[in-house]
């Protein structure tokens, strides 16, 4: 038994960061801060993947985290372009103003 940091610590930290991201998505109405909360959640999942990779002695988790970073980069690019388009049409990025598709 040693006093080092085990896998459980990393999983717990990943869970806390993920839930902070969830709280951000649910409570904020600013579209850009919503995107930042999504980034927080993606990062917490990456942390979990890398922790499992280190625990299992297998590089697959790190490769998967690498792919997640690439997908997040593409997602941020497209998402911010959509925000710019919405801002041009509505002059607001409050997501309560973007309810046109609700009918």
């Amino acid at each position: 038994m040693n006093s080092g940091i085990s896998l459980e610590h990393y999983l717990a930290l990943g869970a806390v960061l993920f839930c902070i991201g969830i709280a951000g998505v649910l409570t904020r109405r600013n579209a850009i801060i919503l995107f930042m909360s999504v980034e927080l959640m993606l990062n917490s999942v990456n942390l979990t993947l890398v922790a499992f990779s280190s625990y299992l002695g297998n590089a697959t988790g790190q490769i998967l985290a690498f792919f997640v970073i690439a997908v997040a980069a593409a997602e941020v690019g497209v998402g911010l372009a959509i925000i710019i388009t919405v801002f041009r049409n509505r002059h607001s990025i409050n997501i309560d103003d973007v309810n046109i598709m609700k009918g």
Partner: protein
Amino acid sequence: MELQPTSIAFMILALVAIFSALMVITRANPVASVLWLVLNFFALAGFYVLLGAHFLAAVQIIVYAGAIMVLFLFVVMMLNLNRIGTLERSTLVLRTIGALVAGLLLIIVAYAVRSIQMTSNVSIGAMTSMGTAKEIGLSLFNRWMFPFEIIGVMLLAAVVGVVALAKRDSIPFTRRTTGAEQ
């Protein structure tokens, strides 16, 4: 129970990560949120170094803290959100429900983490050379060759999509929508 240096580093980084994450979702000014998120990304890069994933730590700082956050800051400043960012109509009910749902999820996930049967309770850390650029590159260009190429195609699609979306007056329905409102 003596504390190892990595344990102290983990605790400091965990405090920084959680505090900066809370700051990201509570700041009214989007620029302040972006800067706290950069700090959060640096803390996560520190965790990757502790876990032996050196290549991923570098990618985290270059891609996330470098490229993605510059994109965020650029959009915030282009839309001049310092002025309108504070006009957030978030009600107390909404905040309560959001915090409640997040707290419940945290309880569920914490229960799941506690119930995992660990095969070994050893501390994990930078023991191997698994996370170096050489090892990751060898793995990426052998076993994960096809997904890596697909990522390239996906990034190309994203670039084309961003240019098509953000170019002024490039989409027909954009003009129609604004015309109908006036």
